[in-house]
């Protein structure tokens, strides 16, 4: 009696063995081809990164592999196309790879600072101020993502010597709503206040 389930199982295995053996190489082969396709895609992205780094102007879509996106952002930052690079950083920051995002922010901050230097050299101090502050924010974000990023520390130091922080002013910064609760309520119209 106890042999019957074992025998049934054995018979089922014997029946299933041949179709399984037919499916196995197909499935494994498909997996190998898919992985090979992945390798090809990676190699192609690496080739494009190399092309971008050697100065070719290749547009990159937002869903491209992250290192390719970073290479494009750095290229745009080198050329001073800050606005275009900013748009791509959001796509890069969507998925958490802090090292890459830190490098992109650093590149962008460098571009801003170089633009600010150009303004200062022409004697235009007004447009330079906001650029320096934005650059400092980007360096700070890069350091928040990667505290051991020494180049970002160095350049943040350079930018911070152009515009110092003033603690007294800083405390005023912030968009907290400083309204008294009473005042808010009186602004609401049509309070019946118990009248019929």
């Amino acid at each position, binding site marked *: 009696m106890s042999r019957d389930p074992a025998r049934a199982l054995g018979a089922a295995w*014997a*029946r299933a*063995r*041949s179709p399984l*053996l*037919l499916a*196995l*190489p197909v499935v*494994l*082969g498909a*997996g*190998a081809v898919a*992985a*090979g396709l*992945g*390798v090809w895609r*990676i*190699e192609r*992205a*690496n080739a494009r*990164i190399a092309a971008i*780094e050697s100065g070719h102007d290749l547009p990159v879509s937002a869903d491209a*592999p992250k*290192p390719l996106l*970073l*290479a494009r952002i*750095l290229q745009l*930052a*080198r050329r001073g196309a800050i606005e275009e690079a900013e748009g791509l950083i959001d796509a890069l920051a969507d998925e958490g790879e802090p*090292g*890459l995002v830190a*490098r*992109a922010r*650093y*590149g962008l901050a*460098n571009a801003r*600072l*170089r633009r600010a*230097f150009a303004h200062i*050299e022409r004697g235009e101090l007004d447009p330079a101020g906001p650029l320096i502050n934005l650059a400092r924010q980007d360096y*700070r974000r890069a*350091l*928040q993502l990667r*505290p051991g*990023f020494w*180049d*970002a*520390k*160095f*350049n*943040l*130091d*350079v930018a*911070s*010597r152009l515009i*110092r*922080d003033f*603690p007294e002013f*800083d*405390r005023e910064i912030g968009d907290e709503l400083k309204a008294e609760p009473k005042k808010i309520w009186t602004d609401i119209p049509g309070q019946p206040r118990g009248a019929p």
Partner: protein
Amino acid sequence: MRRTLCLIACLIAAPAAAQVRAVEVRTPRPFGYFLGDLVQATVEIDVDPGFVLQAASLPSPGPVAYWLDLRAVERETAGTRQRLRLTYQTFYAAIDARSLEVPGFPLVLASDDRHGSTTATVQVPAWSLGLSPLREVQPPRRADPADYLRPDGSGPRLRSEPMRTVSLALAALALAALGLLARDRAWWPFRARPSRAFAGPARRLAVLARGPQTDETYRAGLTALHRGLDAAAGQRLLADDLAAFLARHTAYRGQQDGLDSFFAASRLAFFGGATGDARAQLPLAEVAATARRLAAAERAA
């Protein structure tokens, strides 16, 4: 400054003093930090038994001062000792080495018992942090101000090695599985496998059934299946031996009808001299189908 920062707050508030014995802030070193560095600080609070830190009173990560961020707060309890591990990040761009004060903050300790809950407030003292400059006060003069900056650098490349390994491993496994399949189906190089007597005849019949139909090919097809049956039985198998063969090889019992009509057609073709009638009775395609089923039954045996 002292070598290790160790500030013990004398607690004046009378009710709290009864429950909190000591507050201490420790750092691995209170000096020598550059901008962007992480600063670890441990707050240790010795309390009466039963008191624990209230989670809502813990400082929340975020900016503490214009030059300082609080990044992480971890809480530990070791007996009557409540420990807070704080991770700060300083962004102070120092020109000369200087000490800045890290602000203190209040904490609430609570103890719940049968009579209700008792709370005690404790003030974590401010402590000072020594910050160092990263560059000289006056760097050497450069013609282009952009030369003061460190270069942009470049990002990493994608790594293809892991995916390549996976691909090669899968390809090797697929090849091995193909070998197993070839052995199971008696394909090349396992053609001569004795336990696959019907695989060869089934293949031959499939080829013949697809080709032009003549008496010659029909008889060749029948002969192929006869040779397969002979190999499976281990002897020359005639129509009369079929019952005994099926009794010995139970796997082929389901094919009895097909084998019966095969032997009938074979008798007609080889001994009745009426190959045409045999072909009408049992076309070669059906013989091929019988052989295929026999091969499948053989694989499942």
